[in-house]
């Protein structure tokens, strides 16, 4: 019996629990029986014998879980095999998530996380800790949402040298740029549209300044090059200065503009780039895409939804299965 503890029970945590309910049969066929032994958020928890459906229901109704034990107590004290961590991202300090992940790894438990912060701040430290303890640290959901890029790099392309990775790692920016391309309207107008649709946050700076894409790029580059790149190593330009005229001029010459995150051994950068209209990275809407240039396998392109409750949960579930299969 695989024992899971879910820490962080917001959109992603609940999405993961829903997917466990929906896919129970398929999961058990692959990795055997499992049980969620505890769920916690920063203020409350549930543990012992409980149904996942009930936990989701209670959280939705009351905004919290029935017990008073908080996340850190569960992480430190509960008996589990895998920590499912989906707490709030803090890319400056790693936030509470960093402490939860470290604690779980130290206890010899596997970790599946959707949280970029801890990996941006302490990638090498966490990977080394997991290796020392002989457990797995899985983070597919942190880069490109549901696109299977981390496992692609770690497993399938393990023998390849990846000379360069280029991708669209932020769906909000891609939505804004592809709408500017279609409508030739000013940035601010499209940004407001994106806010109304719930695609952009009320405070969109995390997306439009390229911070989110840069955080993902750090994780991606560290995975590819086995390095210890930090957030400050990323050269970064956002999309807020892009004019409608830029699209007009670009399109006349067969280009569009996209926010591209690029990593090679020497350079990490996130910046708006001219992309030929027929290029695989000229994707539209909130899509994400990643192109890897390898020495022996040529170019490989992956495309998919970069965010979303079900999508993120799917990526986390694939990590869980990977640990035991």
């Amino acid at each position: 019996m695989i024992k899971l503890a879910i820490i962080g029970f917001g959109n992603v945590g609940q999405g993961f629990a829903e997917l466990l309910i929906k896919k129970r049969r398929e999961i058990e066929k692959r990795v055997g029986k499992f049980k969620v032994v505890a769920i916690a958020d920063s203020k409350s928890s549930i543990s012992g014998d409980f149904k996942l459906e009930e936990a989701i229901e209670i959280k939705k109704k009351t905004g919290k879980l029935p017990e008073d034990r908080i996340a850190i107590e569960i992480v430190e004290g509960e008996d589990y095999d895998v920590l499912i961590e989906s707490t709030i991202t803090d890319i400056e300090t790693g936030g509470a998530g960093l402490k939860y992940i470290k604690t779980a790894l130290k206890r010899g438990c596997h970790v599946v996380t959707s949280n970029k912060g801890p990996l941006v701040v302490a990638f090498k430290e966490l990977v080394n800790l997991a290796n020392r303890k002989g457990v797995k640290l899985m983070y597919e959901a942190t880069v490109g949402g549901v696109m299977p890029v981390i496992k692609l790099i770690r497993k399938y392309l393990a023998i390849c040298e990846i000379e360069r990775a280029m991708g669209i790692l932020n769906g909000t920016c891609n939505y804004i740029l592809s709408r500017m391309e279609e409508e030739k309207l000013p940035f601010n107008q499209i940004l407001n549209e994106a806010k109304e649709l719930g695609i952009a946050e009320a405070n969109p700076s995390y997306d439009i300044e390229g911070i989110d894409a840069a955080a993902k790029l750090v994780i991606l580059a560290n995975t590819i090059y086995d390095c210890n790149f930090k957030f400050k190593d990323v050269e970064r330009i956002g999309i807020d200065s892009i004019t409608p005229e830029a699209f007009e001029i670009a399109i006349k010459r067969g280009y569009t503009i996209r926010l591209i995150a690029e990593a090679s051994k020497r350079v990490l950068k996130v910046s708006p780039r001219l992309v030929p209209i027929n290029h695989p990275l000229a994707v539209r809407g909130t899509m994400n895409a990643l192109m890897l240039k390898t020495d022996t396998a040529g170019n490989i392109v992956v495309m998919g939804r970069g965010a979303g409750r079900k999508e993120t949960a799917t990526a986390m579930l694939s990590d869980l299965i990977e640990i035991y299969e």
Partner: protein
Amino acid sequence: MLLTLIVELEDKPGQLLKVLKPISELGGNIVGIVHQRGRKTPLNRIPVEISLKIDERKVKMLIDKIQELGVVIRSYDEVKLIATTSLLLIGHIIHTDLSDTINRVDSEDSEIVELQVCMPEINRPSTAIVTISAKSPEDLSKAISKLKEVCSEKGIIVIEPVEEEFL
């Protein structure tokens, strides 16, 4: 390739056309024409600098044809520019001394061969597309770095293309 030709023309109507005709017949594409009126020769001829793009196999033929027409060719210099790329610039491109920007990027091995500026209204940032050609990919990447450095000083954003060899 880019060819820069300086011819001496008599100061009377129809002279320039004589030179342009063979260029057009050989499929050349004129990039720029500058009349150097201030530098009239003692024989009262005006030096005219013509920059054009032309198939390098046709250069000799062009020079011969122009000379056959009795036009004096003072000099011509072939720059073999084989690497080219276009970049977008966004910012106060004109008011931050555009000619200074161009001069600092131009070198013996690379030059800005085209620039198109779009100015929506006063006080709003302009958008431009610049095309840089260079003698080699290395020279091109040097010129791009230089352009980025100059633009960063002037608060202009540079949008580079993704590498197309990546396709």
